[in-house]
């Protein structure tokens, strides 16, 4: 039967065309939404009211849906604890014995560290307050890896705060609402985390790709990493505090260095959100912003003779005790300016001997770090 002979042909053609037109219009709407989304900027405002509201709606739903799995997990743990109590006790005793030795080492190191800090007059980072939260939903696809945690703005959680489990870094807060916050995982393709290799101090950027093991990009130096090296946050750029455990380096099947995440050792059901502020916000901004006039240079026609500069040992700051093993040098290595309040051109920063003190590791400028 030809098309014209079909008695329903007249109905079919207009409806198909209308459906096609609606499809095209909806596709245009979807593409416009995609182009107007600013997820890549990770601004507080870019998260948007729609997402915040949805997260708030999802929070009780996720709580209710995840309750059975929590109860199941707790039940399994109880049964396991009952049946394996003896072996667990033996293991814990051995662990405790080892930990006691480590405790003594830690106390000695802490004592040393405090002495060095006092000698150098170092300003250490203040302790970071934190809030506990429970994970209620989890997305694990190749294009987005994020989780919802049931703590939000009411507990002081802000955009960008690092999130850790009992084993290591999980990610950072990307969106915050009342009672809920969305955590961008280290494995998300949009995640970039400045890290360092503990053994070599080499810097890298941890790049998520939707898989379980994020990639180490922009590694510098010759053989900076080996299988099994511990990876920590470097603190570069002020996004994360320095020294949070991230995982262990392994060579991937594709030849790239990857990280087996420390947080994967156990299910991430409870997390701690570190209320960490960028170091720039801890500094006294008005003091930093104040313009200091340059030192008077009118009387200085030439630089000091090189021999004099070579003999001079850098001196510590006035009032600070010289580190052990260093020779106290002359008070000024370079001709000091007349006015004592103006900063000296070169000898203003004391540089202690490298062998005497554990000098803080140099922090290069952060690489391409997407906030």
């Amino acid at each position: 039967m030809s098309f014209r002979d079909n008695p329903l042909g007249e109905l079919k053609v207009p409806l198909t065309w209308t459906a096609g037109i609606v499809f095209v219009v909806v596709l245009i709407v979807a593409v416009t939404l995609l182009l107007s989304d600013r997820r890549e900027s990770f601004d507080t405002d870019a998260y948007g009211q729609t997402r915040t509201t949805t997260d708030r709606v999802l929070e009780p739903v996720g709580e209710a849906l995840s309750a059975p799995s929590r109860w199941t997990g707790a039940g399994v743990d109880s049964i396991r604890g009952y049946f394996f109590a003896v072996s667990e006790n033996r293991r814990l005793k051995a662990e405790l014995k080892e930990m006691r030795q480590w405790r003594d080492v830690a106390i000695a190191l802490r004592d040393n560290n405090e002495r060095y800090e006092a000698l150098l007059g170092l300003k250490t980072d203040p302790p970071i307050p934190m809030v506990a939260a429970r994970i209620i939903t989890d997305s694990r696809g190749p294009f987005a890896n994020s989780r919802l945690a049931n703590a939000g703005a009411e507990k002081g959680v802000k955009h960008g705060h690092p999130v850790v489990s009992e084993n290591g870094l999980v990610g950072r807060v990307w969106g915050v609402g009342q009672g809920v916050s969305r955590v961008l995982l280290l494995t998300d393709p949009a995640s970039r985390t400045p890290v360092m290799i503990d053994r070599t101090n080499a810097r890298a950027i941890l790049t998520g790709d939707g898989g379980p093991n994020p990639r180490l990009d922009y590694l510098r130096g010759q053989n900076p990493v080996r299988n099994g090296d511990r990876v920590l946050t470097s603190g570069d750029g002020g996004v994360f505090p320095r020294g949070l455990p991230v995982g262990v380096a392994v060579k991937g099947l594709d030849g790239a260095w990857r990280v087996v995440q420390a947080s994967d050792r156990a299910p991430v059901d409870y997390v701690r959100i570190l209320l960490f502020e960028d170091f720039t916000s801890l500094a006294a901004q008005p003091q930093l912003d104040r313009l200091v006039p340059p030192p008077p240079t009118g009387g200085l026609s030439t630089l000091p003779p090189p021999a004099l500069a070579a003999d001079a040992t850098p001196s510590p700051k006035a009032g600070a005790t010289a580190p052990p093993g260093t020779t106290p040098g002359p008070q000024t290595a370079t001709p000091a300016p007349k006015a004592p309040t103006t900063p000296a051109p070169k000898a203003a920063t004391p540089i202690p001997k490298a062998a005497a003190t554990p000098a803080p590791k140099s922090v290069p400028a952060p690489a391409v770090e997407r906030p």
Partner: protein
Amino acid sequence: MTPGGARTLEPWRWLGVPMLQVVVVTLIFAVPFRFWGLGLPEPIFAMPAVFAWAVIRPSMLAPIGVLLLGLFLDLLWGTSTGFWPVCLLISYGAVLAARAVLGGQGRAIMWIWYGAVTAFAMLAGYLITMLDVKTMPGMFSVFWQFLATVLLYPFADRLIERFEDADVRFR
């Protein structure tokens, strides 16, 4: 029955109920549950519905349903707004365009078509992610999600079997 012998297909039956089912199942699979160190897979539960809707008949409401499902996935999974609507809509459009070819095919061939359309959607997602965040998603995780989604074809088949002949105008 409407005049002309064309039986109407209630939108809530072939669009509303599957949408609701997709939303519920996706939410259940978003629960952070791990057993022996393994989490639940994350298939695209919307894909069987999208494929079946395009096969059953051309409709004005179905693209809107696809858009809503895609937006739901974006908000739940945290992808860019519009990411899943675009991926699902181009798959829907591809099936709609090939509808004449798909008509009367056996289950195995339809499953292959479904797999091809799923691969098309994931390729679109891969390219959009590459352009958006300037990195390539891991091929293994993409393949894993593709495999989990392809295994859902029986749900699409059930939907097609149930509603394919419901509207005689589009047989």
